[in-house]
Structures are given as structure tokens and as C-alpha cells.
């Protein structure tokens, strides 16, 4: 075969396969929404998944948020003091966390902690014929397995992002006030005046909800679509982290540009 023809054919195959996967993921997303009624009726399934994806992620979220907040406090102080406005450190920390770092870093950690667990679990359920067994019992795996995990992820993410921002602010406070010596009153009052509930807090929550939906559906799709072999599940788990991270960063830019223009 002509080498140029071969290269073009490879590119074509790659593009077609990606479009195909995007279509399959969208189909799974729509089916999940259709079957969601059943998972809301069996709320205990969703609560169990919220425990596994949300509650079990709290430790990594809290520890990361504390360090991110402390670094923000340090970096912010050294830059702001050059302009004589080190009292604004509280605003800087709060805005950075609420608008960007809270939702984005939480989503990246979520993809690594909960997303991979979801993909591996569903991939292994497929490999050990548990999904087929469920199908043969006339029970839809989408209603029983996929939908509760989807809603658990979508609900957990905004809560985790809120916890991240809250703990991050505390980390920033710890560095700025007791250690560096910024005025306690100035730290909180500047934050109180300059952080807008609708523009900063609500927009941050909207972002984390969108990231939650994206990360969870990617993790679910990768597991559901994984070839039922050890190698297939391992590749699917890697793809979950890579695709979720890129999706979060891409979506963050799109959402930020929309939010800034209003």
C-alpha cells in the first residue's frame, strides 16, 4: 500500500473510532438519564454509591485542599506585599479557590480517586460476566449499576468542591494570619466584601456539577466499554484519568468564558 495512503487511512480510522466512541458515550449518557427514575426509586443504591465515591474521597480532598490553600497563602502574600496590599490575601485565596481551584482540582482528584475505581469495578464486573448475568435475569445493568453511580458522582462533586474551597480558605488563613501575621479582621472583611455569592460561589458550584457529570460518565463509559480482559480494564482505567482530566480542563475554559461574558 502507498505510504501516504496508509497514513491517511490510519488518521481516518483514528478519527472515526473517536467519533464512534463519543457517540457511544452520549448514548450511554442518554440511557442513564432514561433509567434514572428506577435508581431514584431505590435510593439506598445511590446512597451506597455516594458513600463510596463521595465520602471515601473526603480525606484526599481535605488534605489536598489544605496544602493548596497554604501554598496560595504563601505565594499570594509574597506577590501582594510588593504592592502593599497584603490584607487582600483573603480575597485572593477565596476567589482562586471558589472560581477555579476548588472545582478543577477536586474534579482532577475525583477522576484519579473515584473515577478509576468506578471504571475498574465495572470493567471487572463485565470481565467476570456479572453484567451479562444481570441482563439474563431481565435486570438492566444501566438501571441497577450505571445510573446510581452516575447520580452519586454528580451529587458528590459539588459537595466535595465546596469542602475543598472551605478547607483551602482555612489553609490560607493558617499561613497568612497566625504565621505571617496578616491582620485577622482584614483577612475576613476583605473576603466578605469582595466575594460575590452569585458570581463566585454559584458559578463555582455550576462548574463542579458539570465536571461531576463529565468525569462520572467518562468513568462509567470506559468501564462499560472495556474489553473483558486484564489488559482491557487496565487501559480503560488509564483512559478514564486522561480523558477526564482533559475534559475538565477544556470544559473549565468554555464555562469560564461563558461566565465571564455575563
Amino acid at each position, binding site marked *: 500500500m502507498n505510504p501516504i495512503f496508509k497514513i491517511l487511512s490510519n488518521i481516518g480510522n483514528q478519527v472515526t473510532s473517536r467519533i464512534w466512541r463519543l457517540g457511544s458515550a452520549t448514548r450511554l449518557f442518554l440511557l442513564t438519564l432514561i433509567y434514572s427514575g428506577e435508581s431514584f426509586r431505590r435510593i439506598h443504591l445511590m446512597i451506597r454509591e455516594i458513600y463510596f465515591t463521595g465520602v471515601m474521597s473526603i480525606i484526599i480532598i481535605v488534605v489536598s485542599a489544605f496544602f493548596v490553600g497554604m501554598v496560595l497563602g504563601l505565594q499570594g502574600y509574597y506577590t501582594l506585599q510588593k504592592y502593599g496590599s497584603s490584607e487582600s490575601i483573603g480575597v485572593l485565596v477565596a476567589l482562586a479557590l471558589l472560581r477555579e481551584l476548588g472545582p478543577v482540582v477536586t474534579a482532577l482528584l475525583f477522576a484519579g480517586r473515584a473515577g478509576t475505581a468506578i471504571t475498574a469495578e465495572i470493567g471487572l*464486573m463485565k470481565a*467476570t*460476566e*456479572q453484567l*451479562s*448475568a444481570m*441482563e*439474563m*435475569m*431481565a*435486570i438492566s445493568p444501566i438501571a*441497577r449499576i450505571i445510573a446510581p453511580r452516575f447520580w452519586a458522582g454528580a451529587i458528590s462533586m459539588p459537595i466535595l468542591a465546596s469542602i475543598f474551597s472551605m478547607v483551602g480558605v482555612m489553609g490560607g488563613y493558617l499561613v497568612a494570619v497566625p504565621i505571617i501575621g496578616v491582620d485577622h479582621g482584614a483577612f475576613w472583611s476583605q473576603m466578605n466584601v469582595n466575594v460575590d455569592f452569585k458570581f463566585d460561589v454559584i458559578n463555582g458550584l455550576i462548574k463542579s456539577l458539570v465536571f461531576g457529570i463529565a468525569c462520572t460518565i467518562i468513568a462509567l463509559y470506559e468501564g462499560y466499554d472495556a474489553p473483558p480482559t486484564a489488559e482491557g480494564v487496565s487501559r480503560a482505567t488509564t483512559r478514564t484519568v486522561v480523558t477526564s482530566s482533559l475534559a475538565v480542563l477544556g470544559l473549565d475554559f468554555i464555562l469560564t468564558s461563558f461566565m465571564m461574558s455575563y
Partner: protein
Amino acid sequence: MTQKNIVEIKNLSFGYGNLMLHKDISMVFPRGKVTAIMGGSGCGKTTILRLIGGQVKPKAGQVTVDGKIVHKQDRQGIYELRRKMGMLFQHGALFTDLSVFDNVAFPMREHTKLPESMIRDLVLMKLNAVGLRGAHKLMSTELSGGMARRVALARAIALDPDIIMYDEPFAGLDPISMAVICDLIRTLNDALGATSIIVTHDVEEAFSFADYIYFVADGKVAAEGTPKELSKSKLPFVHQFVHGEKDGPVPFHYKAPSYKKDIYEPV
């Protein structure tokens, strides 16, 4: 009207892409009987069970379950047919996050509104039938291969199905577990008045309890008959399979160019 054959396969062809697994296969599975489907590994035996369960669609021909053409049913129709079926998967396919008790209770909780006290009684009865009532508190990951297969069997019969399908029920089992499963297949079939379809390549076991046997080779039914008829068969394939001869109509060597050509051809 009740059909004489609960499952019928007529002129069925199936394959993945250009590779045809089954070419114009026809089989019948009479009510109340134990029928075995035998053949070498990779000949598409398990796929026949998947076709009966409506998990894949035939390329030509049809599978009829209880008078209904499986691939023409919508999702709801297929689910209604599957409620009449119980399937034992090759490695059990137990839900690893559930206990033995919850695995057997799973289909009951999903499909019925029975009170928990009645579900408990029924689950213990099913587990007692497979001899594992005492293991109901164990997690499915704590079971041996043979025990897992028996729990999966209790789960497959949880809703008293009309058809019980077994996918390689003896694979990887020790002789005692094998004998237990062998006995259970026949006993449960007769006690429940069900119809059993067993996919296996274990000659001795299948010949000991099956009422009728189909041999599948090269995508076709190579031979069929009662175990007695088949054990006397002069057909070369049946003879090779039943006596476990390494070469015959099923060749020892995978299709390849000549040895000389392979050795001397520059890489």
C-alpha cells in the same frame, strides 16, 4: 397452547464480522428434557445460549422460546422471556459485593414484591437444594470454585424458571464438585419440571445424565442423538471427540502453510 419444544432453533446462522460461527443450524429442546450441546472449544456453543437469551441477534434463521421469536421481541419482550430462564455462567458470575444469601435473593428482590421474611425462607430453601444453606452468610469471594457454581445454580433457579441454561458447568472443578453438579442438574430439572440446556465438552458427565445430545463442529450440527446412540456412532468426528483422540477430523495442527516454506522463507 403449550409448545412441545420450549426452545427451537431453525436454520440459524450467526457470526462476528465475516467469520461465521454457525451455518444453518437447527435444534429442538423438548420440555422437561436435559439436552446437551457439545463440541470443541471455540465452536460457538456458548453463543447458542446467548442467542437463546437474546443477547445477540442471528444473521439468518430464528430462535423461538415458548413460541415467541426471540430476535423480533422488543426490550420488554426479551426481558419477559428471560424471566422464564435461569442461566448458570461458566465461572458462576456471582456479584462479588454481595453475600451468598443476597446473591440468591437478588432476582427475588428485583422481580417480586415478596416480604423479606418470605424471601429469607425461599433463599434458604434454594440454598438447601444445592447443599449450601450453611454458607448463606459467607461473601461470594470466600467460596471455592465448586461452591460458587452451586450458589450460582441456586440463584439461577431462584424464580423457578422453565428453562435452565448451563454454560460449561464442569469447567475447572474437582471430581467431587463435578459429581455434585452433575447430580444437581438432573435432580433440579426433574424436581422443578424445567428444561435444561447444557453446553459442555465433558463427554463422560454429559453422557451420564443428558437425554439428548447435539455435537457442533465447523458451525454445523455434526451429529445428534441419545447418549446410547452416540456412543455407538461410527461418525469420525463423534468417535474422535468421545474417545479424546488428538488427531482426526479435528486436526492437531492449526491451518498453516507447508513446514518447509515456513522454515526456509526469509523473515
